[in-house]
């Protein structure tokens, strides 16, 4: 009945799994909230608040491959563990049911 408010930070964790072509699921909406000045993913009965790096990643989940996404991000972000961080973040969104792999 309620709207769950959740926050997602892109943080470091190692994982074996990978996602090759991340796209948002059809019922998830990525939006900018001009009142709170934040990006969000809205889905049935929930809102996921994204920090800046999370929003940079999700805005690129548009059908391109994860490798292309990371390459593009490297122009914007300097982070030694960028590849691992992005993969971890993407997998967390998969776990939440908000992202799918378009190649599957």
């Amino acid at each position, binding site marked *: 009945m309620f709207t769950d408010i959740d926050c997602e930070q892109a943080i470091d964790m190692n994982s074996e799994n990978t996602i090759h072509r991340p796209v948002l699921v059809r*019922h998830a909406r990525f*939006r900018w909230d001009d009142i709170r000045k934040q990006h969000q993913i809205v889905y049935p009965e929930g809102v996921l608040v994204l920090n800046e790096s999370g929003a940079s990643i999700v805005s690129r989940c548009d059908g391109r491959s994860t490798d292309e996404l990371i390459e593009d991000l490297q122009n914007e972000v300097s982070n030694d563990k960028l590849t691992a961080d992005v993969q971890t973040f993407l997998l967390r969104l998969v776990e939440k*049911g908000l992202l799918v792999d378009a190649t599957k």
Partner: protein
Amino acid sequence: MTPPNSTPHPYSLLAELTYRCPLKCPYCSNPLKLRQYASELDTDTWKRVLAEAAALGVVQVHLSGGEPLVRQDLEQLVAESRQLGLYSHLTTSGVGADEARLERLVRSGLDSIQVSFQDSNQVDNDFLAGLSSFEKKHECISAAQKLDLPVVLNVVLHRSNLAHLEEIIQLAVDLNVEKVELAHVQYTGWAFRNRDALLPSRQQLQEAEQVVQAARERLGNRPELAHVLPDYHQQYPKPCLQGWGQVYLAVAPDGAVLPCQTAREIPELDLPNVKDESLDAIWFHSPVFERFRGTDWMPEPCQSCDRREIDFGGCRCQAFLLTGDAAATDPVCHLSPNHELVELAIAESQQSTAPLRFRTYE
């Protein structure tokens, strides 16, 4: 109007479009004296409410009731929500949601749908609903899925359907929904009146937890199983609405604005109405929303408790119903001086043979 710095903007609006409903569930969350609230806001006023909600920061609108499908202007309100950038979620019994209607709603911009079931099988479902509706719910879900609309299943749990929990979960699997909410009855309104017939025993609850745990291990996260536990059997109260006047507001069919859908239980609250004031003015400045906002209003043992910003003192409606004082610590908390009221209610209900009293228009 300038908002006070400490008050956050609401994320979620519960738009109770009507209290009319063909079902008669004995745990309905609508008020007891339904006849008092028979007048409903018109389409234009609802459109204004949606616009004011979006401007206030609301992200998601739950179109609910009663049965919202009895409103013939639902398509218009869905379209308005979409235009305002609100994510619209329809809460329905499934009755009246045939394919043509759902198609119109989806075309208007509906984002997702929640369908209630009362039990896992036709006989028990239709008995609890007070209406032959089991087949219609199936039809609704299959029509929604054909339209690619995400479906959440909601099943309210209590003493007489808890034994079917395994079958209820299987129903969600068979229906291939994304999520099922297994929500134990919250004892306000009609459910409070039927408490003796609805309260499960501790043992029933422990068994239910095992069933859910085993199903999660077996099924993974499809469907996602959200198990909302009955607070009468918990050590601490529920963080009601994530705090009074923090993230959520409800507008009732007659335009009353409530910090929680059952706040009509508390007679001391002089509820503001969208017919008299803007949603913005009500959210930030009305005495009703200020009444239990933050922690200053709290009595002991809440005031000095480490958990005061975790559970926010629990449910105000429950505090009132059990103690007569809406500002008391929620008696389900084991630290409440009135906790024995809950223990007593559980003990008495297990001896009771009270029949279920179904929702009626009184």
